[in-house]
């Protein structure tokens, strides 16, 4: 058969076949070039890694942490921030500010599982009216449905009413980051897009008991900036909380202990899980804020291993007394 075919292969037919073969090879080459991935099949391309900006402000000795007693959240936070030098120390005119409340659950404000919306609104007001911020964003990556969380917690409405924009997390907002020297935060997705356009970052968290970490406060609040299946970190919660405060360097943290969730945290569910402790802490140092905050839960700093871990890593001061906290009352 081949011999027969070869005999019938004239010049015209040979050229046609050669042209077809050439076109096929060229097409395959073009497709291969188009699809060729110079990076190779690496799961985490290095070019995708981002670094979280350092949002902290220069230290002012004796003005690192304030602890204010008061029943009224608005008056109490105003006083707490004033004692540290006023909001103008932290937010400059035309700054873009990201506020990170705890919006983890579809839970109403009265249950205390999420940041109090009144407090969020007041901090936004201070940023705009006194510090002349250009734009304030409010964001979180809740474990429940984000839209429902912002709605039911009433943080969404409070934020927009005060002039801020709420950023709900989307897949494209997450970028991979690595904490140098970290054990867990390695090529891990974080809610980066809102942080990328921010000059300042303010965390606002309630004081809550936590069945895994013993307490959920300022440091644990930044867990909400992690993406991925972050629950795997619950197996070593103390290390991941310490790593969070090594990774995220906020401008200011506000710890709301007006009503403290003393039992059944972090979700609570009954008003009886809450206890009035009438205290708000404002601090440039999240470790110091939480070291005091745990006393509202009847705990000592030694009961929370993540505080010592964070201090050892140079991320803050667990001995908050050494920072000479400014203590005041608001009537």
């Amino acid at each position: 058969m081949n011999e027969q075919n070869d005999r019938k292969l004239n010049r015209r037919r040979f050229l046609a076949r050669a042209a077809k073969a050439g076109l096929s090879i060229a097409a395959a080459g073009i497709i291969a070039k188009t699809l060729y991935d110079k990076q190779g099949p690496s799961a985490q391309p290095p070019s995708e890694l981002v670094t979280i900006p350092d949002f902290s402000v220069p230290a002012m000795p004796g003005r690192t942490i304030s602890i204010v007693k008061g029943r009224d959240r608005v008056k109490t936070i105003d006083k707490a921030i004033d004692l540290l030098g006023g909001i103008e120390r932290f937010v400059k005119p035309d700054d873009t500010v990201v506020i990170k409340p705890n919006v983890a659950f579809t839970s109403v404000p009265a249950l205390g599982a999420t940041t109090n919306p009144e407090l969020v609104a007041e901090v936004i007001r201070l940023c705009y009216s006194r510090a002349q911020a250009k734009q304030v964003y409010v964001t979180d990556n809740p474990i429940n449905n984000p839209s429902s969380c912002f709605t039911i917690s009433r943080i969404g409405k409070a934020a927009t009413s005060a002039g801020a924009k709420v950023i709900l997390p989307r897949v494209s907002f997450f970028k991979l980051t690595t904490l140098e020297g970290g054990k867990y935060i390695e090529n891990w997705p974080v809610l980066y897009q809102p942080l990328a356009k921010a000059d300042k970052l303010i965390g606002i968290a309630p004081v809550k008991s936590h069945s895994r970490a013993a307490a959920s406060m300022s440091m644990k609040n930044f867990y909400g900036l992690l993406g991925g299946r972050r629950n795997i970190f619950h197996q070593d919660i103390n290390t991941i909380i310490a790593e969070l405060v090594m990774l995220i360097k906020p401008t200011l943290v506000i710890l709301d202990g007006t009503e403290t969730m003393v039992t059944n945290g972090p979700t609570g569910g009954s008003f009886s899980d809450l206890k009035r402790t009438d205290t708000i802490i404002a601090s440039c140092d999240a470790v110091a804020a939480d070291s005091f905050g745990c006393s509202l839960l009847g705990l000592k700093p030694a009961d929370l291993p993540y505080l010592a871990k964070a201090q050892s890593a140079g991320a803050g001061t667990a001995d908050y007394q050494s920072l000479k906290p400014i203590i005041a009352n608001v009537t």
Partner: protein
Amino acid sequence: MAQTRRKTPRHESVISLFLLAVLFIIGLSVVIPQFNLRTSRTVVSAGAAKTLDSLLDSIVLRRTPDGAAGFEPLSEIAVYNAENLYEKIDGKAPFYVDSGFEKLLTNWLKSQQDDQLMFEFYVYDMAEPANAFSVFSVQKRPDASPLALFETNFGYRTENALLFVQGKYYIELIGSAKSEPLFNAMTEFAKQLSAALPDQRQFSMPEPLIAAGDNLIPGSIKFYTGNALGFDGFDNTFTAVYKIDSSNVTIFLSDRPDESSAEQLVRDYCKFLIDTGAEEKSADIDIDKARMLDFYGTIELVFNNGPVVAGIHEADDIETAVKVARLLNDILKPDTEK
């Protein structure tokens, strides 16, 4: 010039088509998952729990008995399994999963007239009544008021919540406010749910706790499927508060497979306490092989009676610990020895 085209044999065509189909399927199996990106949340479907889901959907609160406004669901019922429970309750998830959790169905219901009034229901399927009682009892609030609204042995209410066990289900109804119309709606929901739930089994208390009678503080019994008293050897362990004279003392009971296992558990628990700072104390206790330890100023007393490990936890003084231990030991004795 005449051309003779070689006709492809049929079997070659079939093989080629087969190989192309295989390649196509492989391609699809690679491409489709690329569009299934997830952040921290997974989409949950009610399909896995169709029956219970339909049951919950069938509960209608158009108007509560006192004429208050009706309530309507805020969204579809969400269903969580052991893999994604953390997406709903975060740090509490391991506690439920370790206690035998199988699935959770949850949703909000909102008043049609007052959007400040709403409640969220959580129906936890804990696989067994013992597991459901465990998560119920361990989380019980101190201000609990007994619930006598319908047939349930284990239920209570707080200012804004209503919580109970039925069969293998642990149910929480969490109100957004302290409100009578809201509580009435939650009560109506609970009644309808209780009547419709397929599992009507009741968890039974062990005989020794029932025999303790009036000295046991009502509602103080807790059941731990694991890690009772902070010791991982204590699985399937009951604790309860025993009132004697003017003191309240926590007792514990753990049924083991046989006497030698019980003796070993006593040794292990004592070792655990000593390793964490306790000091063994000698005391005149007329209970065979009972051991007493001083744990940072409180008294632990542990012994076994046959296959049952029993003890006193954090008593204020030796006298009280010994007194309650004797009572407990008498209850545990077989009838022939009493």
